[in-house]
Every structure is written in structure tokens, then in C-alpha cells.
């Protein structure tokens, strides 16, 4: 099994506060990995370390075969990233957005042209290719942002709450795109607050107070904790710490 992401006791401290507390995980190539946790549990900090934006205080992590502490630049070249804000420029057209992101990832003009045609075709956006993104429906923007995040064919794509504020049908469509990407061998590392989405993942981890409280496939986790759903399990784990704090 090829590993896309591995971490060993990955830790990030801000002064006396430990945001990420010695997490260890492994994500296989082509896997859809759900990274769950309540707000403030340390998901964002962990993701920032994995995407090369922030250096670990201690521990190790490797992404696409590169070390996060020593080779953040190589990591950036080999990953895609999409956030819940969709990260598109609203005043630029569909085509201009694709070309811009192709450009900043250093694609050649020829490749940008090929990629642009391919994306317009795949997403069925050819008719609106010269329309400013701001006048597209939310679902289209989301699909476009997802495809653009992989314009440079990265080995791994990080999705930070990609479906925030989107209706269930559009979310369902979006997950079809995720599956399609995974089928092509791309690793998908996704954070979400929707527990039904967690069930779609190959494996998930639930972060509580900077630590990984549970990790495994959704069905195995439910069996292990005798929980009827991931939602139930999530609430239970989060409640334990709240009680502990009190």
C-alpha cells in the first residue's frame, strides 16, 4: 500500500496552548479520508501543517513523499487545495479563473489550453466560459473550484469544508466528483461538519482537543463504539471532553 500522508506524533503549540497534540495517522494513495472534529479541535492547524503553511513544533509528517518541515515548497507543488469559500475570483470569467490557477502552478501555455478545454467539457461549462463567476449558481462554482484545485493533477487534494452552505442535492453531486477523483488514484483529504458525508469516506478520524479520539472506517467505528451513526459517535466523543472540562 502506497502512503500519501503519514504523520508521527505531529504536534503544534502556540505558547502554552497545544493546538495539535501528537497525532499519528496514515492515509493511503487513492483513499478518501474524512478529517472530523468540532470547531477549535485543531483540524485547521493540523491541515495547515500538512499543506506546508505552518511548521510543526515537534513530530514528523510526510505528504506526497515530502517532509512538511524541510520540503514545504515541494509539497505545495504536489497538492491541491479547496476551501469552503470556493476560492474563485468572482469578477473573472470561468476561463480566466482556470487559466490563472494553471498559470500560478507553472503549467505551460499549451497545457493550460488543453486543461481549460478538458475542464469546460467535463463540467459542461462551455457555454458560460466567458461569464464572470459571480453570476454562476453556487453548485457550479463549487464544482469549478474543485476541478480548478486539481488543474495541476496533484497526488493529493485537501478539501476544507468544501460543502459548507450548500443544499443536500448539490452536496450529493459534489461527492460524485470526489469519488471520480479518487477512482483516478487521487487521495482526498476532506474536513466536514456534515456527518452524512463522513459516512461516504473510506476512513475517518475524529479529533477532540487536539488529539485523535477515533480512527477507522465508518462501519468499523460504529461497530466498535456501538453507535447507530457517525453523528451519534461524534456527539458522544465531543461530550466526553466537555464533561471532562467541567
Amino acid at each position, binding site marked *: 500500500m502506497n502512503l500519501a500522508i503519514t504523520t508521527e506524533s505531529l504536534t503544534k503549540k502556540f505558547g502554552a496552548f497545544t493546538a495539535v497534540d501528537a497525532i499519528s495517522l496514515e492515509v493511503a494513495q487513492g483513499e478518501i479520508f474524512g478529517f472530523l472534529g468540532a470547531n477549535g479541535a485543531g483540524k485547521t492547524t493540523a491541515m495547515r501543517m500538512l*499543506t*506546508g*503553511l*505552518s*511548521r510543526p513544533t515537534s513530530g514528523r509528517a510526510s505528504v506526497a513523499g515530502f517532509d512538511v518541515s524541510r520540503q514545504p*515548497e515541494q509539497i*505545495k*507543488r504536489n*497538492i491541491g*487545495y*479547496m*476551501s*469552503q*469559500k*470556493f*476560492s*474563485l*475570483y*468572482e*469578477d*473573472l470569467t470561468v476561463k*480566466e479563473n482556470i*487559466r*490563472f*490557477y*494553471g*498559470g*500560478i*502552478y*507553472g*503549467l*505551460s*501555455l499549451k497545457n*493550460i489550453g488543453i486543461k481549460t478545454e478538458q475542464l469546460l467539457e467535463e463540467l459542461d461549462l462551455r457555454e458560460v466560459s466567458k461569464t*464572470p463567476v459571480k453570476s454562476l449558481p453556487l453548485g457550479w462554482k463549487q464544482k469549478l473550484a474543485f476541478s480548478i*484545485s486539481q488543474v495541476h493533477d496533484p497526488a493529493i487534494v*485537501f478539501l476544507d469544508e468544501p460543502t459548507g452552505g450548500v443544499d443536500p442535492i448539490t452536496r450529493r453531486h459534489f461527492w460524485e466528483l470526489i469519488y471520480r477523483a479518487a477512482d483516478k488514484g487521487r487521495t482526498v483529504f476532506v474536513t466536514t461538519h456534515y456527518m452524512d458525508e463522513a459516512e461516504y469516506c473510506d476512513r475517518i478520524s475524529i479529533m477532540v482537543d487536539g488529539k485523535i479520539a477515533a480512527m477507522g472506517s465508518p462501519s468499523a467505528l460504529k461497530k466498535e463504539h456501538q453507535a447507530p451513526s457517525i453523528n451519534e459517535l461524534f456527539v458522544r466523543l465531543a461530550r466526553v471532553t466537555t464533561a471532562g472540562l467541567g
Partner: protein
Amino acid sequence: MSPFFAFVKKETLHILRDPRTLVILLGMPIAQVILFGFAITNELNDVRVAIFDSAKDPVSMEISDRLTSSGFFQLSAETGKEEDLEGVFQHERVKLVVVFPPGFQERFYRNDNPQIQLIADATDPNTATTIVAYASAIIRQYEEEKKGSAALPYAIKTEVRMRYNEELKSVFLFVPGVITIILMLVSAMMTSIALTREKELGTMEVLLVSPLRPLVIVVGKVVPYIALGLIIMGIILGLATTVFQMPIRGSLGLLVAECLLFVSTSLSLGILISSRVKTQMVALLISLMALMLPTILLSGFIFPVENMPWLLQIISHIVPARWFIVIVKGIMLKGAGLEVLWEETLILVFMTIVLIGASIRSFKLRLE
């Protein structure tokens, strides 16, 4: 396609897609240059004055004493030769030269058309008018005391020459001011807003996760605004030189170079602001309050720095525009070169280095 070029292209598209802002940015300087026709005159004190006394007799010396002890003037040089005039204006920063012709005392007592020449630095026409009025009043008062009111009408004639701006055109004063304000506006305010916009929209995150280096992001972001600033400067200069016949007596190359220096100062201010705030609204407010107001009020553009209370005078030292306006006036109106303006230039260079250092540090801190 190089990532940097892709970035600059995208940024240029942002500017072009927002025609309203573009119209304001291009239209405002034109309107300002045309509309600014009047200025506010204020009282003066401790104006640097040079005395060129070829008479050296009791009367000329007494008049000189009166001038320098009046509190309005401060003697900064006594020159001997007419050829020194230029040097006195350029190097001593003198605003007024008083010239006594040989044999002044004799003419004065014989009422034989005694003349004193007052040569004022009229780069700032309002100040020059006031200076000359004050000096003339002091001279008249002296004459009145010596000869009694019976001697009216006054015999000493003061001959006035307005140096550098013979016709006292106030547009000459406002053009450097408008250039300063627009460059500050485009460079500092627009870049701070443009950079904050990326943060607000969440696109900054994506840019930072991309292989683009933070420095490339910042430079790519500001390059189109530098170009825009220079285009606007060209429009103002074109308007000033054609419509108002304003001269550019010094080197145009030096003027452009100094403008680029000031643009860098402003840009680093804009980057510093954007690295500290989260929303475009806050960036706009801070730019207006902390940059535009001091640039307009404390730079000597509208109110002469010499007339400000001492506290404001001290504060005005940290306003980059204060130094830049002196440079622009010096080059355009006096034909001054670097040998005269090196001090102001060095101050701006120093400010820029400090600000760039601070903004890079601030940008990096934010990344962590």
C-alpha cells in the same frame, strides 16, 4: 506561462473589471488639478532670510536688524555677490533675500529713490506673498520712525521679484500636492484594499498553499498599481505642463525616479496595513485616517509646515509626503538636482527600508 506573469495579468483584470474605481482614480486628479485654484494663507514666523547688503551703512544695517529681530524672520546668510543668489535659495533654504544697493543711506536721506529689492521663493506663492508683505511693512515702519509721518508718502521703494513662480500661480503649488496624494492613494490605499480583498474572499489561503512564494504574491499584487500610479502621474504632469504651462525645470528622469521611490514607500505602507487587518472596510478606514489625512494636512500641501504648532511640526517629520512634496517642488520649479535634494531623498529611502522590513515581518508573522 510564468506564475508571476499569470498573477500580474489576473490583478490587471481585477482593475479593468472595476471601471467605476478606475474612473474615479483617473478622474480625481484631473478634477483636483483644475479645481484647486486658491489656497489658505497663514501667518509666518522664523522665515529663513538672507541679506545681500552692498551698502553696509547704518541705515541698511538697522533695517536688517529690524527684520531679523521682528520674530518673523531669521537671518541664515549674508551674501556678498549677486551670483550667490541661486546657491542661497537652493542650499540655505532661504525664503527671502533682501538686497540693499550701494550708497543706500545717502539716497535714503536725500530721498533720491532709495530702493530695496525683496526676492522671495515663490514655489509656494501664498507664503511668498505673505513674506513680502511682512518685510515691506517692517521697512515702512522703520522709515516712518526715522522721518516722521510728515515724510509720507514713503520714499523707500521695495522692488519685488517672485522667484521660481513669477506669476504666483497656485496651480504650481497644487500640482506637486496632487501628485503626492494620488500616488499615496493608488499605492497605499488601493494595494491595502486589494490585498485585504484576497484575505476576505479566502483566495489568499489558496494562493499561500500554491507554490507561489509570498514575495511573488505581494510583488505581483502591487506591480499593476505601480503602473497605474505612473499613468496617473503622467496625466497630471501632462495637464500641468500644457494647460497651466507649469515648467519642469529639473530632470524628468530624476522626477520619475523620485516618484518611484515615493510609490515604494506608499506601497510598503499599504502592505503593512493589509497584513494587520482582516477586512477591506478596515483597510480603507485606516488608509484614509492614518495615511490620507496626514498626507493632505501635515505635508505642507495646504498648510505651511512652518506655521504648525511644534507638536504637529514634529509629527509632520514622519509623514513621507512632507519630504516628497519638497522634492517635487524642488525638481519642477527650482530645477534642483540630487545635490540639493539628497537629504529628503535619503529620508524617504530610510523610511521605505524600515517599512518594507516591517511589512515583510508582519506578513511572515501572519503566515505562522
